[in-house]
């Protein structure tokens, strides 16, 4: 903009690039290297090359069970998060600026409050005679206190609540960008609310839903505070194993190998999701084209 010289650009980018490059990207390189090192004893590893860490991962079915459990819990939580976040986002996106901002800053509170505060709140609620059971028994839904702590149910409830904000924000962005006159036009041409929603609103909100879903799934897959506290160490997932191996056991090479296997499989999942959504969008475009051809309307 202001000058043609290159040096200001370089100077402006340098501090941020140094910090992100050294403190953020470089550790991933260390992670890969260390996953091939040999574990000796707690917090001691030597640099002898080995594949033992990966071999242990694939030979011990315990870790495969952990992997499957993590994926299962994450998929369920993400699906419920999407189902609950969508109507809320749709509601917020159609409000006036002032109240919309107020509600959005309320929705963002769990993000700012952090995982620890959310988890503590849930733990208080999930106690034997805590709020959840108080309500359930008060309404006569449950005769005896339901066990939430130490169960997958408890973890899923905690995860869904924590990540609704992550899902709502991109959804509000793409739902809010839909021109209201499009919906009005559809209605004035005789489409009812359901049809307007299915054919106008839903397709246009897919980009927000996809980015929210990917982000939420990623967070769910690598969560460790919620499963650790609400699962009471009875339900092990990737995050709790990684913490246990790295901090309690001190087996960094194995923790690294598990992490690399995990991030690679997440990457594959993301790639798959992208391919599927692209195919979906393509078929949608084809549908519209064929409808237009039937109606005799040229593009």
């Amino acid at each position, binding site marked *: *903009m202001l000058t043609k010289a290159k040096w200001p650009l370089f100077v402006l980018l340098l501090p941020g690039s140094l910090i992100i490059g050294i403190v953020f990207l470089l550790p991933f390189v260390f992670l890969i290297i260390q996953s091939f090192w040999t574990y000796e004893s707690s917090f001691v590893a030597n640099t002898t090359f080995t594949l033992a860490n990966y071999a242990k991962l694939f030979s011990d079915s315990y870790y495969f069970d952990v992997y499957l459990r993590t994926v299962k819990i994450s998929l369920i939580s993400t699906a419920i998060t999407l189902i609950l976040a969508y109507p*809320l986002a749709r509601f917020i996106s159609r409000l006036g600026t002032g109240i919309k901002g107020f509600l959005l800053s309320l929705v963002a509170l769990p993000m*700012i409050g952090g*995982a620890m505060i959310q988890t503590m709140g849930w733990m*208080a609620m999930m106690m034997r005679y805590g709020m959840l059971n108080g309500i359930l028994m008060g309404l006569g839904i449950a005769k005896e206190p339901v066990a939430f702590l130490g169960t997958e149910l408890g973890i899923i409830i905690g995860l869904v609540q924590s990540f609704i904000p992550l899902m709502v924000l991109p959804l509000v962005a793409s739902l809010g960008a839909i021109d209201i006159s499009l919906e009005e036009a559809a209605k004035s041409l005789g489409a009812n609310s359901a049809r307007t929603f299915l054919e106008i609103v839903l397709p246009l909100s897919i980009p927000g839903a996809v980015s929210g879903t990917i982000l939420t799934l990623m967070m769910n897959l690598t969560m460790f*505070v919620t499963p*650790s506290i609400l699962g009471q160490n009875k339900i092990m997932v990737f995050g709790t194993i990684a913490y246990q191996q*790295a901090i309690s056991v001190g087996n960094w090479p194995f923790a690294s190998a598990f992490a690399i296997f995990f991030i690679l499989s997440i990457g594959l999942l993301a790639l798959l999701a992208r391919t599927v959504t692209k195919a979906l969008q393509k078929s949608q475009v084809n549908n519209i084209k064929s409808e237009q051809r039937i109606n005799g309307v040229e593009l």
Partner: protein
Amino acid sequence: MIEKMNRVVVIIVSCLIMLFVLAPIIVLVISSFNLSRYFEFPPTGFTLEWYQAFFNSKEYQKALLISARVASSAAALGLLAGIPAAFALDRYKFRGNSFLQSIFLSPLLLPQIIWALGLIQFFSLVRFGDRSILGSFVGIVLAHTVIIIPYVIRMVLTSLHYVDPDLEYAAMSLGAKPVRTFLEITIPIILPGVLVSAVFGFMVSFTDVVVSSFVAGTRYITFPVRMYSEIRTEGLDPLAVTVSAFVVIFIVIIAMIGERTIRWSRFI
């Protein structure tokens, strides 16, 4: 008629989901005044006993103080590194611009726990004298700076989009040097975005538990890490809940002030 009923249903459902999202925060605040030690519901009585205990607890105050020191240092560093970078990304067309932008934002997307695993190994090898920076103040602050930088860059980029470049050209054509133009035209316009990213960055660092619990070590135990290890070993106790409720009240007040004064939700 049906339209009206639909609207009522939509509002009720939205309120219920909202209540669910805010439930833990609300419950923490209620529990901090609850007489019962076991978080019974409905509350058995009102008390300020736990707040009294908190104001007498040196240990929790120390943890909060460490968190505040880490968060303010990291937020300052994050602004120093993030604002110039955002400015460069917005105002210069150069090859690799969008690539660099996604690199800068990547700490928001890549799983923190996996990065943290690499980070403890890396930090344990970086030495000043005979000590590694793993578990040192510098180490924690650097790690938190990485968490804050993407927020700063995203929010400052958003506010830079509101700046009309013509204003800057006008100032310069009237004889202002680029530095003066930046200080007197650009900075005031992007100030709300900078302010929000400073506050947001501070709070994200203040409440971080994932990265902190990996790199914290034993000397600088921040408030969320203290909570985590205590709950894991001794279970939930009213004092810990009260300290968290105190932080929650603080966060809600900041969020509401931020929304009222500069509409901070547009940057989130």
